């Protein structure tokens, strides 16, 4: 049963229906029926994930644009706001998050090389590092709130000169908005990791079928990339 003869058989006129039929009979349990083979399924799912990431790039892009626009208007307030950030914690968190990207990438490798336990372990490590990141972030949020930097009715900035205070509040809106949205993505990623840890442990993945881990990795690395830009923009303004 050739699923799309006009597309596939034109490219490979030599393929007979019989051959395709035989291929379909011992197909992989995770091969969806509308795909020709796992390679095609893999290509389609990574492409689909990249299209989703395109929308994510524009979603975060709007935040980055707003940041750039108001930074251009209130450069001194932005500088003051960045100085209220703990750059040591920011650096530590950057290292933790890039570390989690490494373990995520290695999990793909482990799945590709049929290492079931190592895949599970590396996914679990990714989850742990992600949780450490969120823990540090929570500590930082707590500090900001205690120092009166949370924007809104509780904003009580006694550190900066009165002229700078509204601008610093605007910076903090971007700070909480951008890191908050980033953290929401991390939490979603952590939930996905739990699901994939279970599937990896069950032995779903191997050299033939590792697409879902690859796609999970694309998401996780994207979230890492957002932080790669947030870190210098929010913590390291001179």
């Amino acid at each position, binding site marked *: 049963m050739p699923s799309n003869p006009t597309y596939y058989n034109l490219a*490979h006129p030599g393929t007979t229906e019989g051959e395709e039929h035989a291929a379909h009979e011992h197909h992989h349990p995770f091969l969806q029926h509308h795909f020709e083979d796992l*390679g095609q399924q893999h290509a389609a799912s990574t492409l689909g994930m990249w*299209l989703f990431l395109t929308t994510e790039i524009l979603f975060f892009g709007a935040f980055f644009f707003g940041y750039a626009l108001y930074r251009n208007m209130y450069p001194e307030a932005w500088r003051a706001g960045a100085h209220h950030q703990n750059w040591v914690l920011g650096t530590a968190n950057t290292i933790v998050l890039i570390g989690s990207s490494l373990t995520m*990438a290695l999990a793909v490798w482990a799945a590709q090389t049929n290492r079931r336990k190592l895949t599970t372990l590396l996914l679990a490590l990714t989850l742990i590092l992600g949780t450490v990141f969120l823990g540090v972030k929570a500590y930082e949020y707590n500090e900001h709130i205690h120092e009166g930097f949370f924007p809104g009715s509780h904003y009580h900035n006694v550190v900066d000169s009165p002229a700078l205070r509204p601008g610093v509040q605007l910076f903090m809106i971007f700070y909480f908005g951008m890191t908050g949205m980033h953290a929401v993505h991390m939490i979603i990623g952590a939930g996905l990791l739990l699901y994939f840890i279970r599937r990896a442990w069950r032995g779903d993945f191997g050299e033939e079928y590792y697409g879902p881990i690859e796609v999970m990795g694309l998401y996780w690395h994207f979230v890492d*990339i957002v932080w790669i*830009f947030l870190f210098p923009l929010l913590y390291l303004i001179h």
Partner: protein
Amino acid sequence: MAHKTDYEDHIGHAPAHHVTSLAVYFGIFFLLMVLTVLTVAAARVNLGVWNTPIAMAIAIAKATAVILWFMHVIHSPRLTWIVVIVSFLWLGVLFVLTFADYLTRHWSMY
């Protein structure tokens, strides 16, 4: 998979079964760590107007390394390359056109 499957003819070479070596993964991680240290060190020094461009250049280098090797775009079909590149092109449109509006608004105040 001995022969080239059909979809490969349409969207470039197959992404499946390409295993990136551990040396590449750890090498990229090391590069990202070096660049992180570099960006923090650069921020400790007053480089004047060059501070932000340098920080952004380092961030772009890090993001590129992650996209190409951790996200395996370097071994992806051409179609994926197009989607990735065009994503950033659209981001460029978002920035350039919106800035073209905001940064020129005061010009009309004559």
